[in-house]
């Protein structure tokens, strides 16, 4: 109930935000859409990381959006190299998708997080199909903001650790000796 109350307060604040809004950069989401994203995150990210972990995951994703660079050469690959550059920032598309998701939720009776799980699933399923999202992207690819949020978290080193309940620390700094033993469970030091 506490959490629901807090979300209600945040929702009211978000409604008031347009009056206070300053010019947004093209690579930022408006505050009201960030609110929607946090609301959706509670459904699409695992409960095991708690609401703080889910908010942190959203913050990391927002940072990813802010720090996105356009026109940068992507990995050439090896074996069959080709030059591919990053496309335009996905932020404007994300904003439209979040607005659409919010409107679709309201048409079904309210804020996304208040709908039944099956209704939320249906909304996202429809949105993903419309965006041609078939699988979890290897990393965010700009097709749909929610799939990209999920990819950003579930493809992370932290999610890998959570899946295996083990301190693996993939692609992070580690002393070599740490990797020579079975990784300890997350609850253990």
């Amino acid at each position, binding site marked *: 109930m506490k959490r629901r109350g807090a979300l209600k307060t945040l929702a009211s604040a978000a409604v008031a935000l347009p009056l206070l809004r300053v010019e947004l950069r093209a690579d930022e989401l408006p505050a009201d859409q960030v609110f929607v994203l946090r609301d959706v995150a*509670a*459904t*699409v*990210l*695992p*409960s*095991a990381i708690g609401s703080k972990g889910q908010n942190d995951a959203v913050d990391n994703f927002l940072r*990813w959006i802010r720090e*996105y*660079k356009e026109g*940068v*050469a*992507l*990995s*050439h690959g*090896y*074996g*069959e*190299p*080709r*030059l591919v550059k*990053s496309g335009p920032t996905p932020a404007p598309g994300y904003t439209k998708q979040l607005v659409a998701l919010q409107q679709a939720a309201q048409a079904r009776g309210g804020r996304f997080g208040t709908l039944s*799980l099956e209704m*939320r*699933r249906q909304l*996202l*399923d429809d949105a*993903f199909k419309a965006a041609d*999202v*078939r*699988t*979890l992207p*290897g*990393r965010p690819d700009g097709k749909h903001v929610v*799939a990209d949020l*999920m990819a950003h978290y*579930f*493809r992370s*080193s932290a*999610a*890998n650790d*959570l*899946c*295996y309940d*083990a301190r*693996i*620390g*993939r*692609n*992070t*700094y*580690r*002393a*070599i*000796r740490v*990797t*020579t*033993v*079975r*990784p300890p469970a997350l609850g253990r030091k």
Partner: protein
Amino acid sequence: MAVHESDVCVIGGGITAVMLIERLAQLKPGLRITVVEAGRSIFDRENRPTYHRRAIEYGEHPWHGDYIEDQTAKGWISMTMAVGGQALHWGGACNRFSEEDLRLRSMYGLSTDWPITWTELEKYYVQAEHRLNVAGDPSPYAEDRRSAPYSQPAMPLSYNLQTLKKWAEQSGLKFSPLPMSRNVTAPADGRGQCGLYDTCGDVCPTGARYSPDYTYQQLIAARKVTLHDRMLIRKLVLADGSDRIVAAQGYHQDRPNDVTDYRAKWFVLASGQCWSPHLLLLSANARFPNGLANRSGTVGRYMNGHKFISAQAMIDEQTFPGQNMTHSLISREHFRCAPGAPFVRHDTRVWESSAGKEPRLRAADGRLLLGDELLDEWRSRATRGSSVRLRAYYDSHPSADSRLTLDPSSTNRYGDPMPKIDRQLDAAATAREAATLAHCTSVFERMAKASNGRLTGAPTVSDYWDHPAGGCRMGTDPASSVCDSYGRTHDHENLYVIGAPTLPTGGCTNGTLTFVAVSLRSADRIAEGL
């Protein structure tokens, strides 16, 4: 026209060039050495932790601008053209070839022999391993004798690789840690210690995996070499009335109309298997209408490397993907082939893997998975046994028609035709392709049997040749080779070709250590003649 003079002009700034330059500078202090590289210098090592992060998060290439858009080749496997070359982002694998690679003709009646003895090459393997600070253990196979130990003990096996080693050895093959050019035990040579970021093939944030840019910077700071980067050599020029090379003509990327004449007593072509034969062919003139160093007609021929067979296995033992995915196990069991037996030679490699154990958006019935559902479904697959990646690089002998040619349909800004590489097996290698696949499949199946394992699909043959080499092959007969065993071209007494292009055949394991070893041998010979 600008003129730049030196004692030795090295064309190409990759790993073999820097190893040769370092050796020459040691042997002949005060020698004026210039290295000319078409690509740019990327020396911003302080940014590599950021590039590492961005490579993971955004898929960005961590070596900014390491390519020249109009300097491309059909059939190549890497676009990188920069100071340091492809070794800026190699994995650091440092396996030796074996004596059989040097004696294919005399032992098996196949392909050709190298004009170097194993004892001679082994000396230079030791030196190369020392310079690259290779971490390795002695091979469990007695035939792999060494005359000196590695600089460091092997990279310790991760828990995953320890588990996989126990599994794989039930097949009867003996495995050992892949020797790696990484600072495992301590920082060394101005590079940091390994922090297991596990992104060696992209970028190493600490510099623990050997990277030639460090050595270039050290040599430049010590004034042992002059580096001219972003300077494309388009032509080698002969002296009047002689077959000696008198100049290399360079064009700077920012001044495409200005020619710089690089004059030197000795020229060393160190531009790798693609651009070395390409420059020789481009440098054709009235006396050498088929290209320099090409009286034999073998420049651009016998392009080699090796093909590989890959498979995935599933086993019951549990591993934890992400511990050290760039390290692997190697078995040299099939480096040897008994004379008279059906010929097949390959290494056998084992990596940890997460194939089939990645998170999925949908359940098997197509239902969208959300939050806990997704995690639960992922966990149910991931924590039930392990996925294992298997590979065998196999001996793939090139035919004379395995070629690099000039492709008039693709030109750079100067109108120079770009290279086109089309690798071809010789007749005997073509005839044994099916048997090689069957053999490697049986080896993988034998390995997979342990721990209730199984291959998850039929092993597949690569559609490209890895660790490419050849195009300026060494030999004793000037009628059938480009250069002698030291890389000195038969046709031009002051022109050497070093490293990968000189290899007659590409072996059946990673090639870089061998490219470096033969280049160090070239350095010794060049120094003797100075």
